[in-house]
């Protein structure tokens, strides 16, 4: 079984989840002011998933994210100021302010990017995992996708390819119950996405995405398997999102109290706090201190982004092609 997490790791886990939550709650507020261009899809409610998986990854490991990608970027270690600036479409943004929320990327961190194409991460991960295998780097590649993405041909083809080539890949299905506004009950034929792994000759397992420790353990086994040459795995994380598919989504397809109940009973941060304080591993004071620090950090990121300049017209001609030396 997974080794016990030490205090430093527990603090790191909480800080990462809190950074994601604070970031997303703030983007929710700021988006309503009309200053943020384009669409944003918030990850609030799913923090334990990105955090539990990413804590097993190093800088050399790759992540391909989704349109709901802020959480994956933060968990992989992206600078909040550069990320916020990117979402605001500002020049100091991590992609020069030209990508926005759905194209945040930092290849130096192995973050291959949020992705506006549903299911678009699968082929990228196969490529990254193949590179790691051929170059014998011992790195792994993680593909996050949703229940909507699970029905895309790209994901199914990628599961097949990863299994055929026994790639060091982990496919993490974040099943939040809705593909945009369509319930996964009506759109995922096997019900459990994890069941599809068997069809491709790879193991598929389910973990509770509200419980950081469950995700951490499950992802740990999948990453260990991939890193040790055991090939790909499919990990389905049953989770919930607190906001709509996109900001502005009226969510008429959800029950009136659905999100309220989720926040009250299944909030991953609340559950984490309850567990670690009960076990005497962390104190309320330590956790509150992180809350305060993260709030200040996000405040600073927003201020930085708001004050930053927009890209110039001439920037349209940069970053279009890459030159291979």
């Amino acid at each position, binding site marked *: *079984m*997974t080794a*016990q997490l030490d205090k430093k790791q527990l603090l790191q886990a909480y800080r990462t989840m809190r950074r994601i939550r604070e970031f997303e709650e703030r983007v929710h507020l700021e988006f309503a002011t009309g200053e943020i261009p384009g669409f944003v899809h918030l990850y609030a409610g799913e923090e334990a998933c990105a955090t539990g998986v990413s804590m097993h990854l190093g800088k050399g490991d790759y992540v391909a994210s989704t349109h709901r990608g802020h959480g994956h970027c933060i968990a992989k270690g992206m600078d909040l100021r550069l990320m916020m600036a990117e979402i605001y479409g500002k020049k100091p943004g991590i992609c020069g302010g030209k990508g926005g929320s759905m194209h945040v990327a930092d290849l130096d961190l192995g973050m291959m990017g949020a992705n506006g194409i549903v299911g678009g991460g699968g082929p990228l991960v196969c490529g990254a995992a193949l590179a790691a295998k051929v170059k014998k780097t011992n790195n792994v590649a993680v593909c996050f996708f949703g229940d909507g993405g699970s029905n895309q041909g790209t994901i199914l083809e990628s599961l097949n390819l990863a299994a055929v080539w026994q790639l060091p890949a982990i496919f993490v299905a974040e099943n939040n119950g809705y593909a945009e506004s369509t319930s*996964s*009950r009506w759109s995922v*034929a*096997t*019900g*459990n996405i*994890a*069941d599809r*792994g*068997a069809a491709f*000759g*790879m*193991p*598929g*397992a*389910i*973990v*509770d995405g509200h*419980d950081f*420790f*469950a995700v*951490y*353990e*499950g992802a740990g*086994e*999948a990453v260990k*398997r991939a890193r040790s040459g055991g090939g790909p*795995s499919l990990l*389905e994380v*049953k989770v919930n999102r607190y906001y709509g598919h996109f900001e502005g989504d009226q969510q008429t397809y959800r029950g009136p109290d659905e999100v309220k109940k989720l926040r009250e009973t299944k909030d991953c941060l609340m559950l984490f706090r309850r*567990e670690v304080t*009960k*076990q*005497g*591993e962390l104190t309320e004071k330590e956790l509150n201190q992180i809350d305060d620090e993260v709030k200040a950090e996000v405040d600073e990121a927003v201020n930085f982004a708001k004050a930053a300049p927009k890209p110039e017209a001439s920037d349209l001609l940069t970053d279009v092609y890459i030159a291979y030396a």
Partner: protein
Amino acid sequence: MKSHPDCLIGIVTNPESGRDIRRFFNSSVFPTSEKVNMVVRILAALGVFGVQGVLMMPDSVGIAAGVIRAVQAHRAISPDPWPVVCILDQTIERSANDTRRAVRLMMNQGVRLIIVLGGDGTHRVVAAECRDIPLVTLSTGTNNAFPDFREATSAGMAAGLCAMAKLDLSKVCRRNKRLNVRIGDREEIALVDVGICSTRHVGTKALWGVENLAEVFVTFSNRDSTGLSSIPGLLRPTGRDDGEGAVVRFDGTDPAYWLYAPIAPGLIKRVPIRSINPLQFGIKCQVAISSGTIALDGEREIEFTPAEHPYVWLDRQGPLTVDVLKALELAANQGLLVTGKHDPDPQRQFMS
């Protein structure tokens, strides 16, 4: 056989059984479609013996929906009567509460018997709610020491005969042993094993390592069990009907000996044994470590701290289960499955 207007049976199919993290070690999965097929085969058997109604728990993965589709298709192509299948009206949480709620609703509606498709964990949840309603057990889980691994048709036949009161239940049912765990005001049961480990969080719930194990209590253990009960099963097996259980204690630093045991499907571990002893009914055993987690039938369910002092005891107040083999033997011996050439009941023609 004629259908009986009052004869209701419940079917519990855990949609999540067989999908935990232990899949990473054995790659097997019990697909949703096969769970549907099993229920269909049960319905065919129940229909023959005149069971009129079946209550099923709803789910979010399509088992109940698949069964309804199969029932509709059956009606269109076959004259053979199947029971009417009703899906219980309950909300779905995607947790063990779904099973608990379903069993309570079934009980309220007066089911005579409940057929359970799941592993040890699913059966434990049903057993905690079903009081004296007999269970027919079918394994579709990861660790399946408690339920029968058997063809659903035979199980359906035995269930139908019992529900229609064709058999004396006292002759074909077993009263199972169970383990009880008490921690503060909370009380839980286990049907096969209780594992005490020093891991602090329940996490994925599944238990697949032995390095943090302190002790294991079992109600019974077989030589060919898989899961924690395989450990005493390979050392000193205890039968389901024996008047005792067993407790094994572990010592990773100075074990008396090591044992190779299949603690999960596809996962054989070297286990450091300190001792194995019989566990008598009613003896309250305080757990061996001050904090950690308690696994019930292979799943970590309870976290405990030094301020709490959980204890475990064995009794014989577990669920009643139908011994399918015994039931079919009795039915055969009583001539219940034999009919004459000119039997007027068309449902019995195939047996002539």
